[in-house]
């Protein structure tokens, strides 16, 4: 699995997101900023939906690097209890079944689902989903 950027996911299987813990304050952010100020930390794999929207049009390129073919997707903010709220895609759920507070599980998704070797981006699915 190839992440869209280095240092975004852990190398283990299944992978986890990598956040950064401020060495002075303990505050966790995502992604881990470059430099010495933050220590990389593997974030929780499970969380709950804090808020969301549906991206209904293809974002402008640049910067968007996804495929020309566009289907709307869910943009989610996922609360990882006691750590941080991260922004990611939400897959494997119908738009009208999304509920704030629903339990979610980290499951990286391809930026281009039609490509064999697509880079993977941060994404979650409902905790019970098999995706």
């Amino acid at each position, binding site marked *: 699995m190839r992440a869209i950027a280095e240092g975004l996911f852990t190398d283990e299987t299944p992978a986890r997101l990598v956040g950064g813990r401020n060495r002075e304050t303990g505050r966790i952010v995502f992604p881990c900023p470059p430099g010495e100020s933050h220590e990389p930390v593997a974030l929780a794999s499970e969380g709950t939906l804090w808020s969301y929207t549906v991206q209904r049009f293809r974002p402008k390129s640049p910067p968007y690097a996804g495929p020309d073919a566009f289907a709307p997707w869910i943009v989610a903010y996922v609360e990882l209890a006691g750590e941080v709220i991260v922004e990611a895609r939400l897959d494997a759920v119908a738009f009208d079944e999304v509920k704030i507070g629903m339990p979610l599980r980290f499951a990286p998704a391809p930026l281009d689902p039609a490509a064999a070797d697509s880079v993977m*981006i941060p994404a979650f699915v409902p905790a019970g989903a098999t995706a």
Partner: protein
Amino acid sequence: MSGVCIVGVGIHKFGRTEELSGLDQGVFAVREALADAGIEWPQVQFAYGASDAAGNPDTMVDRLGLTGVQFINVRNGCAAGGSALFSAQMAIASGQFDIGVAVGFDKHPRGAFNALPSEYNLPDWYGEAGFMVTTQFFAAKIMRYMAQFGISQEALGRVAEKAFRNGAKAPHAWRRTPVSLEEILEAPLVSDPYTKYMFCSPAEGGVALVLASEKKARELGKPMIRLKAATMRTRPPHSFEVFAPSIDVVADDSGPRGTATRIASADAFAMAGMGPGDIDVAQLQDTEAGAEIMHMAENGFCAHGEQEQWLIEGRTEIGGALPVNTDGGCLACGEPIGASGLRQVYENVVQLRGHGGERQVPGDPRTAYSHVYGAPGVSAVTILER
């Protein structure tokens, strides 16, 4: 601050004016404001100019006259116009100057602002993955607010409906055709729960205000519109702002988080010696329909969740208990960043002078409130009194 008055206002119509640069529109507004104040450019002792994307404001001295006047450019995100006004009033309140200008203008390309991650200190992948889209932030913010405080999508529609209805009555507005609530709600979604009518668009326009000391204002013989408070504030910890790959967790997340708006608003009311109940008309940042709803509460005009009923009862209509965005706000006027905050103050001066025509707030309003909010978590508030 009772010593600072607004003695002249000018505006170039918002929207799209292909044949004029942003600067041209700023110059137009300054000339109109000078004429309104009954003064000439050589009498102006200083100017603060705001523009985000349309060049350096001070270059307008070429057009207005090379009088050697002090002219300072202000670039401060979405609070640029408010910051120009704040700086101008300080120049007078300090006693250094008696009369000066705050001007703001802008001219943005069509469509959504196209931001690049590097401009925001974000990694490239964030944009490549499709997260560098401002509308996502606005939508995610209101989605949580609606769930927390029981606000419906119909309430968002009512705000947009009011904006276009008011804009139709404001000569300087861009969108001047009323749109029915049904059409607003059934329009294509841009970013759930917002349909295309619920977002403002980047635009063009120019606004200028002439500020004077109270003594100077009396000499000019203009109606005394006093600037009772002007504040500009930045965000507190844990706020949720645009282009956020992560947000802080907090111990109790059941209520609304702190915002720059709440700080700017509370400080402005304290400075003016007034409370929200004393305000007769308000212009609140409405980048999107939900912003107006959240800002009604963040500025202290109602409790979180009361907005649904306020909108159903028409309390924020021009004839209501607290008219909000009487010229249609950003939704009807568009958002030229440098000019937007000054447009609100322009509209408030028009209302306090009783010159609002078809959109005039009835009952002889004496106090007016303006509020800007935007990237990167900044807010500016003014309170005027006649």
